[in-house]
């Protein structure tokens, strides 16, 4: 049983650092989502705690939501690539694969299929979490083809509209006209239509949003994971501002996210009829789905 790998050997419990013991005693592993989950953040030991992200980073905030929203954290693997996000993701108490540049969805394809071979009766959730550069520029072909192949895992794009980790260069998801490094005269084309691409490529559930409400954010993440288990690829395109490169004063980060919600990151949700049916079943159950 999966949980065994995180339960300390009885003889050694008193020799482990507190942090690890508390993770099992007070963490979300094997617990009902109604006890843990985003609604109760702050009352249980979360999977991501200390991380090196910048002060006021909206991406770090959203990453905490991802991990608090996981339906089955003890059976989840995340995959990421170069970018700010992995600095926080790699601090989570969930296995994280850091591969090469933009290869997260190709890796996830291999991993998801391998898990289904080895564990036909256990649901292992694979989630790729990468930035706009990793997903839509350098990893574009691997992102798209994983969707075309109907690979059953969840893709989350943390869109800060720039290459934050390398110092603020133009990305495919930057706005037209944005003056950034490597676009000194302003970007001369608009944002890639990520959501439409995902729908066209066959994702069964796609959301675009600015995460200003944790419950709404968590619901989208959980839906994406549930649909990926049974139906096919799912995609979440989320606005996670870079307050450093876009000079958003820290106290205004939330206000900025609110404004985005009224603008280009207005909430949009796409689901196939099958996904709709599935959500009706899953969400009617009060209990947390245990695989």
């Amino acid at each position, binding site marked *: 049983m999966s949980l*065994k790998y995180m*339960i300390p*050997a009885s003889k*050694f419990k*008193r*020799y*482990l*650092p*507190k942090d690890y013991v508390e993770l099992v005693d007070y963490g979300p592993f094997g617990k009902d989502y109604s006890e843990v989950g985003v609604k109760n953040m702050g009352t249980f030991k979360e999977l991501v705690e200390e991380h090196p992200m910048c002060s006021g980073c909206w991406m770090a905030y959203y990453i905490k939501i991802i991990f608090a929203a996981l339906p089955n954290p003890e059976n989840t693997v995340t995959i990421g690539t170069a970018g700010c996000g992995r600095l926080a993701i790699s601090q989570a108490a969930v296995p994280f694969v850091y591969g090469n540049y933009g290869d997260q969805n190709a890796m996830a394809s291999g991993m998801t299929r391998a898990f289904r071979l080895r564990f036909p009766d256990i649901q292992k959730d694979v989630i790729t979490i990468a930035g706009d550069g990793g997903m839509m520029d350098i990893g574009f072909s691997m992102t798209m083809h994983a969707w075309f192949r109907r690979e059953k895992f969840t893709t989350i794009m943390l869109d800060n509209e720039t290459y934050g980790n390398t110092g603020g260069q133009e990305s495919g998801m930057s706005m037209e006209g944005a003056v950034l490094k490597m676009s000194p005269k302003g970007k001369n084309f608009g944002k890639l239509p990520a959501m439409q691409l995902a729908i066209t490529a066959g994702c069964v559930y796609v959301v675009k949003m600015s995460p200003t409400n944790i419950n709404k954010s968590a619901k989208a993440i959980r839906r994406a994971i549930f649909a990926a288990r049974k139906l096919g690829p799912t995609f979440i395109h989320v606005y996670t501002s870079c307050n450093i490169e876009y000079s958003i004063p820290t106290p205004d980060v939330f206000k900025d996210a609110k404004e985005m919600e009224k603008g280009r990151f207005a909430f949009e949700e796409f689901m196939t009829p099958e996904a709709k049916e599935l959500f009706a079943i899953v969400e009617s159950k009060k209990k947390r789905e245990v695989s």
Partner: protein
Amino acid sequence: MSKKITVGPVGYMPQSAPSMGVELSPEGKALLYGNIVDEKEAMRDAAKALLTMDNPTIFPGPQVLWDWRDDVADKSAAILELASEIPNCKIIPMPDYRPKYPKIDVKAEINPNHPNLTILDNKIKACVFIGVHCHYANLTLRMIRAGTSCYTVAMCAMMGHEEAMASLRDVHADNILAFRDVVIEVRNELGIEHTPTMPPENPSLPKEDWGSLTPADYGEYRSLIMSRKGEHVAEVE
């Protein structure tokens, strides 16, 4: 016997033991200072180090710290029995392999990416690694040999480790107990009196109390949080 692998510090850029011609011991044999010897010989040398050098410590790794396999219960019990027979022995775990952020608590754990911090801070001169995955064990053993003067013993469930001063292979609960018996034997020969004592539990620090922080706690960075004369800070995080 010439020692191919010796207690460090061997210097800034260590040469790896395999590149110095050290090969893993065949089944039924052990490695001592890089040479293939009988298990008993390696155990006796390791026991002597653990009994005579300062602050002997056992570093259990993930494979024995968590209850993922049926053999863990026996193995962990055996490790504690071994520890109880070594005077002043401590147990400091290596719970995982990620570099610690923001910083390691060197009294509470050891990490393969910077093992020297724990070894040096605790002035550990002899140690045992057990239950660490081989890749990380090799990295950490080499770094310890590079930068510290600690005698290393590897008790490996698989093929052993060239980097350790003493390397025992195919180690299961029985072998740990056999090593405990050797420790007792050598201890008696050395005339060290000892009643079995369990090592102290993990001294994890209590949670830091941010409420009682004063600007002085920020040291050289205190100027960053103190407003300058005439400066008015309206909002803070």
